């Protein structure tokens, strides 16, 4: 098996294991992610602050330079008033150099200002995203907790615990019944062995017994008939015999009480 099914299964398992290794609880992962986002937001905000500081420093430098520039201009004007054109020229050329610096700084200042605005906007957007994530995270966490509880309830209801309990009861009942039957079978075997119960497990034997009984009964009948005939022919001495013969005929009846356990056994 190396096809899509297997590969997807393997990747799923690997991913799941990786996810489990990192954090067993997805809620922890969410909180961790939120923490990371907050850190990122903090960084962006620090960036904004750094840029603002640089901008302010540039502004200070600019005012300083502009002050110097106007000083030089004043000095040039005074030098010219005093008739020192050379001095005035010097002052004005220094001022020109300063003016160049001012222009450069102003360009830098503008760039920084643009940067700062962009960063401020990004920070605001990020803030909104982090806030949204926090809300979503809490929703997901709540849903997860609910799902977890639901799974547990589901497990308790449909699964293992209760059902196994039922199965256990059924097994217990089955075992009890088996033990009872075994005990009863054992008792019956013992009773049979001891002769307290007649083994009458087959109907065929009953038939044979009945036939034997009938035959022996029949013999008795024949005997009695002969005795009666002899009595009629030979006088009173046969009377005693006739009573004995009656007893003999009653013997099949004595079989009757032994028959009753047969019903018990079945």
């Amino acid at each position, binding site marked *: *098996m190396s*096809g*899509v*099914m297997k*590969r*997807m299964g393997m*990747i*799923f398992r690997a991913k799941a294991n990786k996810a489990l290794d990192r954090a067993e609880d997805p809620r922890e992962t969410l909180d961790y992610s939120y923490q990371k986002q907050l850190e990122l937001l903090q960084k962006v905000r620090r960036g904004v602050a750094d840029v603002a500081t640089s901008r302010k420093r540039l502004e200070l430098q600019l005012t300083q330079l502009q002050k110097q520039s106007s000083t030089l201009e004043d000095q040039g004007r005074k030098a010219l008033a005093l008739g020192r054109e050379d001095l005035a020229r010097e002052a004005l050329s220094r001022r020109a150099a300063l003016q160049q610096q001012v222009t450069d700084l102003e360009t830098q200042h503008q760039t920084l200002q643009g940067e700062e605005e962009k960063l401020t906007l990004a920070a605001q957007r990020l803030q909104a995203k982090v806030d949204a994530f926090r809300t979503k995270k809490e929703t997901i966490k709540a849903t997860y907790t609910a799902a977890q509880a639901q*799974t547990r309830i589901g497990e308790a209801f449909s*699964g293992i615990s209760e059902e196994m309990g039922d199965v256990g009861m059924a097994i217990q009942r089955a075992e009890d019944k088996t033990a009872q039957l075994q005990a009863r079978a054992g008792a019956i075997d013992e009773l049979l062995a001891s002769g307290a119960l007649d083994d009458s497990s087959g109907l065929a034997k009953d038939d044979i017994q009945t036939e034997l009984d009938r035959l022996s009964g029949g013999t008795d009948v024949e005997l009695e008939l002969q005795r009666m005939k002899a009595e009629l022919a030979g006088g009173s001495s046969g009377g005693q015999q006739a009573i004995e013969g009656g007893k003999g005929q009653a013997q099949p009846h004595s079989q009757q009480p032994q028959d009753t356990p047969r019903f018990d056994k079945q």
Partner: protein
Amino acid sequence: MIVRIMGEGQVKLADSHFAELNKLDDELLEEMEGGDEPGFRRTLHALLDKVRELGTPLPDDALEPSQLILPSPDATLSEVRDMLTDDGLIPG
């Protein structure tokens, strides 16, 4: 074996069916790697139909991990390819 069809659920399949499914699965992999979109679609559907036909669906509340996973019927070739790369399924 338990097979999951993404977006549908899990199905229990007897191991004896795998020789048959394997053939389709290997075909699917070949078509994916070769970029044969219509072939891929046809084979994916054939494979999913076979799995549904041969398998018995597991109840929704069953908690069993799947040994094999199949893309959902509407997955495209590139989606499946993405899933099979390292960062596809669960980002991170």
